[in-house]
C-alpha cells in the first residue's frame, strides 16, 4: 500500500524516486501504467499532460506515450524472439523498421532480433529493454530499477541513455533504491519512506546534508559510504502498517509527541523543496 504520494515529473528532466525495497516503488510505476494487479485498489489522481490519467486513458497511452523500462530479462517472454516481442505482433514493414532502428540505437544489430531472451547477456538484455521503450516516441519513461547487478561503469552507461532520452524532451521517472546512483543522473529526487514521499528536492541539495529537509533524508545521506556509512537504527515499517502519526517516528532522533499523534502530515514547500515533516530541518551552513 502506498499513501500520500505526490510527485511531479517534468519533461526534459529525470526525476528519481529513491526508497528501500518494499517501500512500494514498483507499485507507483504500475499504477501510472494502469497495470496494478486485480487485488489492488488505487485512490487519488494522476495527472498526465494536465489531464486526469484514467485507467482507460492509461491503457491507450501505455506502450506509446508512456513506456516502462523494467528490471531485467525476466520481463521478456522466454519463448519469443526479441524481434517479435518488440514488434508486439505487428508485421508491417514500418514496425519492423522502427524496431530495427531502436535496437541499432543501442548498438544491437539485426541479428539480435533472432535471439531468444536466454541468449542475451545481462548488458544486452538491459539495452533491449531500453530499446523496447523507444520503438515509439515516449513522452514519459518509467525506469523501474533498470540497473541491478551492473557494475558502476555499465550502470553509468545505461543512465547516460536516460539522460539522452530526457534531453530529447521526455520526462523520465527513475525508480531506484540507490541514492548515490540516483544522484549521478537525476535533476530532482523524491525520497520514499514506507509508501509515502517524505521529501522532494533538487539533486543539488544532496551535495550537502545541511541542505536536506527531512530527518530521514539526512540519515539516508549519512548512510551513503562516501559520507560516513552510518546506518540508520531500526527498520522501516511495511507500507500500510502505520495508521497514524509520522511513519518515521520509530527511527527518528528528533521525534516529538505531536509527530506520533498527528493524523496527517502534509507534504509542504520548505526552503525550495517539498517536505513531509512537522519540524523540518533548517538549512545549515556547511
Amino acid at each position, binding site marked *: 500500500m502506498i499513501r500520500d504520494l505526490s510527485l511531479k515529473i517534468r519533461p526534459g528532466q529525470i526525476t528519481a524516486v529513491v526508497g528501500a525495497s518494499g517501500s512500494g516503488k514498483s507499485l507507483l510505476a*504500475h499504477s501510472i*501504467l494502469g*497495470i496494478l*494487479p*486485480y487485488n489492488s485498489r488505487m485512490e487519488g489522481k494522476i495527472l498526465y499532460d494536465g489531464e486526469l490519467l484514467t485507467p482507460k486513458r492509461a*491503457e491507450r*497511452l*501505455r*506502450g*506509446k506515450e508512456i*513506456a*516502462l523500462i*523494467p528490471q531485467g530479462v*525476466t*520481463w*521478456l*517472454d*522466454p*519463448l*519469443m524472439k526479441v524481434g517479435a*516481442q518488440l514488434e*508486439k*505482433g505487428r508485421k508491417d514493414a514500418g514496425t519492423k523498421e522502427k524496431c530495427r532502428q531502436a535496437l541499432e540505437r543501442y548498438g544491437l544489430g539485426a541479428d539480435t532480433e533472432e535471439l*531468444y531472451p*536466454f*541468449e542475451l547477456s545481462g548488458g544486452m538484455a538491459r539495452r533491449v529493454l531500453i530499446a*523496447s521503450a523507444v520503438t515509439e516516441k515516449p513522452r514519459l519513461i518509467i525506469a523501474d530499477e533498470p540497473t541491478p547487478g551492473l557494475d558502476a561503469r555499465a550502470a553509468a552507461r545505461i543512465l547516460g541513455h536516460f539522460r539522452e532520452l530526457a534531453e530529447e524532451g521526455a520526462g523520465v521517472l527513475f525508480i531506484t533504491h540507490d541514492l548515490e546512483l540516483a544522484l549521478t543522473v537525476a535533476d530532482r529526487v523524491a525520497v520514499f519512506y514506507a509508501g509515502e514521499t517524505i521529501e522532494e528536492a533538487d539533486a543539488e541539495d544532496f551535495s550537502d546534508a545541511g541542505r536536506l529537509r527531512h530527518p530521514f533524508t539526512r540519515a539516508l545521506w549519512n548512510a551513503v559510504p562516501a559520507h560516513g556509512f552510518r546506518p540508520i537504527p531500526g527498520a522501516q515499517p511495511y507500507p500500510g502498517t502505520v495508521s497514524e502519526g509520522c511513519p518515521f517516528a520509530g527511527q527518528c532522533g528528533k521525534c516529538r509527541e505531536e509527530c506520533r499523534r498527528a493524523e496527517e502530515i502534509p507534504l509542504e514547500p520548505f526552503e525550495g523543496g517539498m517536505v513531509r515533516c512537522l519540524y523540518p530541518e533548517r538549512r545549515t551552513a556547511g
Partner: protein
Amino acid sequence: MKHRLQFTAKKLLRMALLLLGVSFASFLLMCASPLDPLQTNVGQTALGSMSREQVEKLEEYWGVDAPPAERYLGWLKDVLHGDFGVSLLYRQPVLEVIGQRLANSVWLLLAAWIISGVLGLALGAAAGAFRGRWPDRLIRGYCLLISSTPAFWLAILLLLVFSVWLGWLPVGLSVPAGVDAAAVTLADRLRHAVLPALTLSITGVANIALHTREKMADVMESDYVLFARARGESERSILLRHGLRNVALPAVTLQFASISEVIGGSVLVEQVFSYPGLGQAAVTAGLGSDLPLLLGITVITSAIVFGGNLAADLLYGAVDPKIRRRAAGR
C-alpha cells in the same frame, strides 16, 4: 550426434527394464490370484464329471502344477525369441488376439486422447486466463466433479441416459448384433464407439484442464505478461501470443503422459460397454487366468505408454528454443 545416440540408448535400456519389471509384477499378481483356472474356465460340474486323465490334461494345459519361476522364465525366453505364445482362452496366438483387439480399440483411444487433450487445453487456458472469475469457477467446478467421479460410474450413467432412456445410441458392443460382418457399415461402428469415447474424453479432460489452468495462471501473473501489458498489448494478444506459447510446452508433456490414463480408463469403460477392445481382453485374461495373453497385453500397452513419454521428450526438444538452440550449437 553422439549425444543423440547416448540419449536413445539410455531410453531403450530403460524401456527394457520397465517392460521386464511390468511383466514380472503382472506375473506375480497372477500367481497370487485366488482364482483356480480350472474351476473358472471349465466349471465345477464339468470337472466333477471328468476322468482323472482328463483333469490332469487340463491342469497341464493351464499350467497349474508348473513351478512359478519355471513358468515365468519359460515365457520370458519365448518372448525374447519373438514368440508371445498362444492365448489359453482364445486358442489363438497372443499377438493375433492383441492385434484384433487393438484394431477395435485404437479409434476409441485415439478419439478420447485427442478430444480430452484439445478440450482440456482450451478449458484450462480459459480458466487460467479468467482466474477467480466465473468462467474459471465453472470450469474448475466441472473438473473437480469429474475427477472425483469413477469412470465406470460415469459410463453407466451415460449408458442409462443415452441408450436406455433416450435410445439414441446402442447399449454395447462394437457392431450391431446379429448382422453379417460384411454388412456392418462405418456409421454402425462410429455409433457404437461414441459413448465409450465420450466417457473416456470427459474423464480425461479434467486432469489436463486443471494442470493447464495452473500453468496459465502462472503465466498470466508473470513479469513478461505484465510488461506486455505495460507496452500496450491487448489482453487478447497477450493471451494468444504469450499465454498459449508458454502453456504449449507443459501441455505437450501432459498430453503424452495422458496416454496411460486413456488406456487405463479404457479397461473399465470397455467392460461397461461390452466393447470388444484391448481393455476388455485384459479383464477377460485376468479373470480367466490366461497368463500369456495378460502378460502380452501388459507388455504391449506399457510399451505404448513408454513410447508416448518418449515422444513427449523428443517433441519437447523440438519445441523448446533452449534445447533446440543447444542441439544446433553442438
